[in-house]
């Protein structure tokens, strides 16, 4: 195993219990107290609603593995979602809309990477700054209003099915497979482990850690672009606060999934389970008629508990 050479951590499989226990507990809890939770329709609903978060949480895992963070992801998603809506409305073309979203997202990701890698600004402040910028641009391009009347070709992406499976789930699975291949089966993936674990080694090997770091953040921005398409399709409009706080759900999924914030090791399957755990938590609370504010607060508590447990493990 290539990653084992860089990270002296227990095998990733030993971490299954943490996030799996959380997931099983949540499912058991809501099966007991939330009527209709265990129905096929509701569970597939949970999965479809988790797809946007999957697209953010997977690249967030890579970024956190480099001891970084991207607080701008939710705001960038808002902006790309608006770009998709505006461009597809103007051109009546879903692909051009997606292209615009991808471009803007990747541009923001590259700026994030540049600020972190080249200027050396701590990631949480650099991306807090770009959060403000993306939020501002969203307000400016939309003038604070929703963008409505987008073409059916965009809306249909969210509701269509492929071989009986909803298209968003297909997209999320393809994304997962791509990230899994990238992280565990390419050289680039090995370098990502080294970016967090041992940056000096990369330099000695004649590689440019800065360029790799920029690439990691750019991937995050580009994924926010694709997720922006799904968001626009789901809401059938572009809205200037569509992605508010989504980066926090992504960080929650990564933290619950067992990726450590301090040692450059990450686990994609854990993140995927973390995404589902966040989705189940929000859906279950929704079913027992808890307002979305309580959902937000519970996700916050979930993160703090997960990080506390992670801290216990690392100092034990």
């Amino acid at each position, binding site marked *: 195993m290539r990653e084992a050479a860089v990270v002296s951590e227990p095998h990733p499989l030993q971490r299954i219990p943490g996030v799996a226990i959380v997931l099983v507990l949540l499912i058991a809890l809501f099966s007991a107290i939330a009527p209709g939770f265990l129905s096929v329709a509701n569970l597939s609903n949970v999965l479809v609603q988790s797809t946007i978060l999957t697209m953010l949480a997977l690249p967030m895992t890579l970024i956190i593995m480099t*001891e970084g*963070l991207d*607080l701008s992801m939710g705001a960038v998603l808002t902006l790309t979602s608006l770009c998709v809506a505006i461009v597809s409305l103007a051109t009546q073309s879903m692909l051009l809309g997606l292209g615009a979203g991808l471009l803007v997202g990747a541009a923001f990701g590259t700026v994030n990477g540049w*600020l972190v890698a080249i*200027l*050396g*600004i*701590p990631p*949480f*402040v*650099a991306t*807090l*700054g*770009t*959060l*403000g*910028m*993306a*939020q*501002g*641009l969203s*307000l*400016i391009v939309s*003038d*604070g209003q929703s963008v409505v009347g987008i073409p059916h070709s965009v809306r249909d992406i969210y509701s269509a099915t492929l071989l009986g499976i909803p298209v968003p789930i297909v997209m999320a699975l393809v994304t997962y497979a791509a990230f899994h291949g990238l992280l565990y089966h390419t050289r680039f993936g090995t370098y990502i482990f080294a970016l967090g674990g041992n940056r000096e080694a990369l330099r000695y090997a004649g590689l440019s850690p800065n360029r790799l770091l920029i690439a990691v953040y750019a991937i995050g921005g580009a994924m926010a672009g694709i997720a922006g398409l799904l968001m626009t399709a789901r809401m059938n409009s572009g809205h200037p606060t569509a992605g508010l*706080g989504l980066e*926090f759900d992504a*960080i929650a999924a990564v*933290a619950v999934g067992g990726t450590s*914030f*301090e040692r450059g090791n990450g686990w994609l399957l854990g993140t995927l389970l973390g995404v589902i755990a966040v989705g189940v938590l929000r859906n279950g609370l929704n079913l027992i008629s808890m*307002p*979305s*504010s*309580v*959902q*937000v*607060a*519970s*996700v*916050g*508590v979930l*993160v*703090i508990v997960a*990080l*506390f447990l992670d*801290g216990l493990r690392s*100092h034990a």
Partner: protein
Amino acid sequence: MTDITKEAIVPSRSLLSQDAVQVFYRLLAALLICAVLAVLSDSFLSLGNILNVLRQASLTFFIASGLTLVVLTAGLDLSVGANVALSACIAGTVIHKTGSPALGILTGIACGGIVGLLNGVMVTALRIPSFIATYGMLWVLNGLTYWYMAGETLHGFPAGFRQIGSGYLFGLPIPVYLLLVFLGIGTLFAQRTIWGQEIYAIGANPVAARLSGIPVARRLLLVYAVSGTMAGLASIIFLSRLNSAEADIGESLTLPAIAAVLIGGTSLFGGVGTVFGTFIGALILTLVLNGMNLLSVSANWQPLVTGIIVILAVWLDMKTRRRAQ
């Protein structure tokens, strides 16, 4: 997070004079912005507008002054804006229920302080990196506030209470007097007390601080509690100024507060900066936003400009530090 090998603690006297130079540059920048705005806009130099700038700057300063101490320890408190919202809503409810502004003010400040203390516990006892812990707290507070308010708005407070935020004394807004008081207390605390100097030492080199017998965890707890308490105080002034409380009042406060701290020359890497610098930072940011307003730039541009300012400020700080080394 892991870089504990910072440069050695600079003796406080040379630190002060270096800070004085930095503050001087920033004062010049503020004056330059004033000159530009005076040329560009007729109404900038009117008494009403200048008092308005001072009042607005003092609101940003209250939040940013506590935050300065946190940043001096190389930490960050991202929950201040959400803390202001929760504290304002709780204080507003207490005033409405009991009719006593004094009780409301106390509960609001206490609420802020308790939230800050919880942040401190997460950072010291649970050893969660401060920006993640306080970011988690941001969303917990946000959720709590929206749940507590359930879409309601509280408004209409006693006239005496409203004087705090909107009243005048000898021609100056009352928040400006509060600003001077807290600027004095903050500066004295940071520069002239042992606890203040210990906070600088922790930020400059936490390991050396611990080895030289400074109770690091207790000082950190104090710093986060102060940050929360100042957010609680700011919530009272907001409540009194707006004469209403809503769940979303804190959403646009955190980024400007962080911007004020960073423009003011406090380094994100800890150990360098002054409370007075933060005041100048709050003034500069307010002048820029006020100028945009006077030149009829849409308020939609404010987050974009604030974001760019945050990044520029950190970049400048890093450049001057590199040159100094």
